[in-house]
């Protein structure tokens, strides 16, 4: 008997050790969340100025730009090998907080600074002001799982989408959907609306779009947290895509680059239906006015969700890169300038628009001119 017990104990110990080993591996993966890159030497004649830079450049904020940042940081490392850029996806709010506290030199945020934050930024920026640049424009796709429907896109008006997500339209062959999709055979299948279970900028932009464009069919305010309870949901973009993929008849919304094999909805804009594309997403940003408190340094866009501009796709997410117009350290100023200039450059925007990186929409040349002017205004304050 004693022998049995001893053997069992050894085995139990072995299992405990195994569990421990797994836990250690997991922790190691977790620590990897910070995207950073230090790269080897590379000499490019056209970027000699950048190659002279050195130091650390830390950023934090929205997780939406994390993939694009990863790409930008890796490529920037090739032109400025001695600058170590890092970006930590702590969320928009956390990023703005860290930036204002002076913990990081730049932040990424899905929403612009509030009036109080902009005032607080004067202190943080050594008497200068905050610079806000719409450098990441990402179309959000309304995705659905209907393998039997062979149409390239289903057409829907914002009001129809609002009614689907608020539970007023419950089957796919509802007359409201059929009227917008003549010639498409819709199945008599129950609709399963799926939302994000975590708070996210994607949800905030989607609900903002529904609130403004659905002509009253959506009765909730814009919020990053889904306002309806008792729904199917997924944690994070991948959780949402998995959930939509998991049930025939499901519909959800996600970063367009992650739509994969799922069907996507063409949104009604004016009198036509516009499927998502990077060009259509960039177009709505150009067609939208600036926010009331925008300046030539704070390029805050007030997205026009009800635009009738031909070929514009109004369901987009803008992530701002936030920096200071003045730094007390010459190296910081030069590094921020060089990095943001790279991000705003045609190459930087092209890189992020690659579906393998982030699938975002490159900013237009006219916006780039304004952005570059704002970046050039960064100075060093004693």
């Amino acid at each position, binding site marked *: *008997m004693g022998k*049995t*017990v001893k053997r*069992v104990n050894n*085995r*139990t110990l*072995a*299992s405990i050790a*195994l*569990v421990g080993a*797994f*836990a250690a591996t*997991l922790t190691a993966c977790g620590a990897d969340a910070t995207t950073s890159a230090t790269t080897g030497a590379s000499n490019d004649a056209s970027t000699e100025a950048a190659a002279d830079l050195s130091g650390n450049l830390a950023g934090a904020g929205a*997780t939406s730009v994390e993939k694009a940042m990863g790409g930008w940081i890796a490529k920037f490392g090739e032109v400025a090998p001695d600058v170590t850029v890092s970006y930590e*996806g*702590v*969320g*928009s*709010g*956390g990023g703005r*907080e860290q930036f204002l506290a002076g913990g990081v030199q730049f932040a990424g945020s899905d929403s612009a600074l509030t009036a109080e934050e902009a005032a607080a930024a004067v202190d943080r920026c050594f008497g200068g002001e905050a610079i806000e640049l719409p450098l990441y424009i990402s179309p959000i796709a309304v995705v659905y799982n209907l393998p039997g429907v062979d149409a390239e896109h289903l057409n829907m008006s914002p009001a129809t989408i609002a009614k689907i997500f608020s539970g007023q339209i419950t089957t796919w062959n509802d007359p409201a959907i059929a009227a917008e999709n003549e010639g498409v055979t819709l199945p008599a299948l*129950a609709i*399963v609306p799926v939302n994000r*279970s*975590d*708070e996210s900028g994607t949800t905030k932009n989607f609900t903002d779009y529904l609130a403004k464009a659905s002509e009253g069919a959506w009765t909730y305010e814009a*919020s*990053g*947290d889904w306002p309806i*309870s*008792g*729904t*199917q*949901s*997924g*944690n994070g973009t991948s*959780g949402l895509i*998995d*959930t939509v993929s*998991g*049930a*025939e*008849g*499901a519909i959800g919304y996600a970063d367009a680059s992650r739509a994969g094999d799922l069907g996507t909805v063409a949104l009604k804009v004016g009198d036509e239906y516009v499927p998502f594309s990077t060009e259509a997403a960039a177009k709505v940003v150009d067609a939208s006015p600036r926010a009331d408190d925008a300046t030539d340094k704070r390029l805050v866009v007030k997205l026009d969700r009800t635009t009738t501009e031909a070929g514009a796709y109004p369901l987009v997410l803008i992530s701002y890169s936030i920096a200071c117009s003045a730094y007390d350290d010459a190296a910081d100023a030069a590094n921020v300038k060089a990095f943001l200039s790279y991000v705003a450059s045609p190459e930087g925007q092209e890189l992020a628009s690659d579906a393998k990186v982030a699938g975002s929409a490159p900013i237009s040349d006219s916006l780039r001119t304004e952005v570059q002017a704002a970046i050039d205004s960064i100075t060093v304050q004693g």
Partner: protein
Amino acid sequence: MAVLSPAKTKQNSEDEPAVKRSKGGLVGRLFHGLSAAAGLTILLTLAAVAGFLVLRAWPALTASPAELQEISWFRADSLLAYVGPLIFGTLLASVIALLVAVPLSVGIALFISHYAPRRLAQGLGYIIDLLAAIPSVVYGLWGALWLAPALNPIFEWMTSALGFIPLFAGYQPPAKNILTASIVLGVMILPIITAVAREVFLQTPRLHEEAALALGATRWEMVRMAVLPFGRSGLISASMLGLGRALGETMAVLMILSPGFLYSFFLLKPGQHQSIAANIAAKFPEASGLSVSALIATGLALFVITLAVNMFARWIISRRSEFSGAN
């Protein structure tokens, strides 16, 4: 020592016992000190965790409802109203997991300890221990990507055939509901409960078993009259160990459940329940300021529940031990 230097031993034969005692005394004292320190570490850790939770939760505990409602995801009237459904969801998931796991575990443990041929029992025991070593993320992935689609037709049948019972009404695919999460939790705690139950059943005095068989009991009667009463308190401890893991389980629930914040007994509807641990994991990455405190306050609630469950289990065991047959 006696072999190495017999002469010396002879010489010092009178001092020997004294030397031995003082040496044993030193080692003994050292060991006593070490084990006491180890015991104290547990108490200190517990106190440190409790202190940390209270300290960091304090801003949320003392905040007014108006301040709390400034947190974007906070939709309740007070902190208590926010934690309530979370506690309910946590307990519901854990209790269903226990209902799934305990009968199965007892069956497996009895099979291994009293029915299976020795070689098969060894192999089975090894597999059970292996299951305990699988990390919960893997269980979560398995549950979300394999089990949920597999349960889909079963749940569809349940809601159409048994839908008149509110418990099973309103299923909506995919199977991201509390029942799926509980089944995965049940599978996760199965190995712990089985391993402990098997050990307990193996400890049944041989004499009791042989006496039962000698009186003409069948094997089932022997198990019922000798093994189960003897193992009852051990089985309760095993279940409580499993319950502890189910209460605190994060990843599996996070990956499987469509969360909601309701007091609801609809086991098949999505968006009704959420567990405390999964809620913290989902909200913490983007939390800052007061919202961190509010989340830690829910963690404090989980801490208190776990303590209460353990104390309740100890109370049951102490009550049962009087007539368990173990003495």
